[in-house]
């Protein structure tokens, strides 16, 4: 039956998804209510801007101090940047569950001896994790909105939602990348190492690119996933079609690659 794997995957992961969503929602809620007003933000900007070296600020994802003085900018820095890193962890765990974990556990044998083509196994599982990662992001935004309703800090929900779009695509991309690694490498530990390296290297490329802004070295950040999912940049400049297209294109390519690889190789060795 079409959709059976999708539904079964949802049944298995809804609880952990809820925990992740509640955790991030609480973080978002806390970030919003901890800031009483704009004046506090300006003081915060002065303290950080005057005392911290620029490179250190960039390491923490602050590309422009001015943006910190706005509620949206502060939330992007204090919440979305770290939420993205946490969501990357979720994405890696989710991506490993698409094929690698089932193969390692031996359950893939039973699944693949049912009248289900391999592409459907990957597609339905990927779709389930895409949906659940989106649910987590939605729940975290509910935390932000509840914080806004209970606190005194006013911010634009619309701009925050726009900042969430590339973040969501980046999470889908990491799920797809992990699925590729999980189908390509025979050993789960190797796949995990490759994915974590990809994320860490990507983070540092973005950091180096920002720290070296105005020089030729700044171009390395185009290779970074974080460059295209930068919430602060969306808050400041709005969405850019190029970033979205790159994220969506890379996600689709990686997903297609994971299906292609899984269709062609031995399973459960």
């Amino acid at each position, binding site marked *: 039956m079409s959709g059976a794997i999708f539904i*079964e995957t949802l049944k298995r992961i809804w609880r952990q998804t809820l925990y992740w969503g509640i955790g991030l929602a609480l973080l978002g809620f806390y970030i919003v209510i901890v800031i009483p007003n704009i004046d506090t933000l300006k003081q915060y900007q002065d303290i950080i801007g005057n005392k911290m070296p620029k490179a250190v600020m960039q390491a923490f994802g602050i590309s422009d101090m001015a943006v910190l003085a706005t509620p949206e900018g502060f939330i992007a820095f204090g919440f979305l940047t770290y939420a993205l890193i946490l969501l990357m962890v979720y994405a890696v765990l989710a991506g490993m569950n698409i094929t690698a974990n089932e193969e390692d*556990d*031996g359950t893939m044998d*039973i699944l*693949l*001896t049912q009248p289900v083509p391999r592409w459907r196994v990957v597609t339905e599982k990927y779709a389930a994790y895409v949906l659940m990662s989106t649910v987590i992001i939605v729940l975290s935004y509910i935390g932000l909105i509840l914080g806004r309703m209970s606190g005194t800090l006013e911010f634009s929900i619309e701009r925050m939602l726009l900042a969430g779009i590339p973040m969501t695509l980046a999470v889908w991309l990491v799920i797809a990348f992990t699925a590729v690694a999980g189908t390509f490498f025979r050993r789960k530990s190797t796949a995990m190492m490759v994915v974590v390296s990809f994320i860490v290297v990507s983070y540092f490329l973005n950091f180096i690119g920002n720290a070296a802004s105005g020089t030729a070295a700044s171009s390395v950040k185009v290779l970074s996933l974080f460059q295209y999912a930068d919430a602060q940049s969306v808050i400041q400049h709005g969405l850019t079609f190029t970033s979205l297209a790159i994220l969506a294109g890379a996600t689709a390519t990686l997903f297609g690659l994971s299906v292609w690889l899984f269709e062609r190789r031995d399973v459960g060795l």
Partner: protein
Amino acid sequence: MAAPIIQTHQLSKTYTGAGRDLKALDNLTLDVQTGEIFGYLGPNGAGKTTTIRLLLDLIRPTQGRAAVFGLDIQKHSVEIHRRIGFLPGELNLWKNRTAAQVIYYIASLRGDIKPQLKESQKLAEELKFDASKKIRDFSTGNKRKLGLILAMMHRPELLILDEPTSGLDPLMQQTFNQMMRDIRAEGRTVFLSSHQLTEVQAICDRVAILRDGQLQAVQSVDHMMKAGFRYVDLQFREAVPPMWQERLESIGAQDVVIADHMAHFKLRGDFDPVLRVVTNGYLVNIDVRDPSLEEVFLTFYGAAESTTQKEAVR
């Protein structure tokens, strides 16, 4: 005669890794007929599971081809899977789900859920299986029962079972044997790999013996049981003269053991030369016994390997 339900032609599989190649299956050419229970025998590492995984398209052949229901195993794997039931040698299921949930999930993957659930309840009663528990709480035997239910609940035309009764108690093995006979009576086919030669002897129509990835023999169980030799025990009133050992061996007796009043040996051919050798003795008793399938099986592995293989078989 109808076309074979399973057909392989020079099917080979070589595993590559860690700087060396391992030929797990070497030019397997084999036919399994519709409506038979086919036993696939061999010690660990002989290539039985590799064959099954190839037939199920879990792994891909290095060379050769195979067809199930006349359909190519790679091109038509989904159609083939729809018509088969499979029990792996090592059954791994989703530990945090209950057996009932797993049964529902597998039924939903196949479609037409209701008849499958009804059949699964019938099978659960036959096997005395409680589907309400979580998979992680099941013993090996209960997991095997669940595996059999999952493999049979859609009433497949072909059952592929890898070591189906390992972990089942003797009573359940009897139930299993009867189930297999019922399946055969309905014109369906069973392909089972096993170490349990008594089980194969009890239910299989034909057997194939595999060694180091190569097919050694395919014969009907009846024919194999008439393997051309018998075990003979001769009991004499007086002690057996040691020189008879040499005389018995000279007429073709094998594995001759002379002990006190007894002479034990393996005999091929006629009995008359034996009587001529022992003509001077007073015979108290003659015991002639056909070999068991296990003993026949071991002859395919040669006397030198007998001990080792016997361990593997057990």
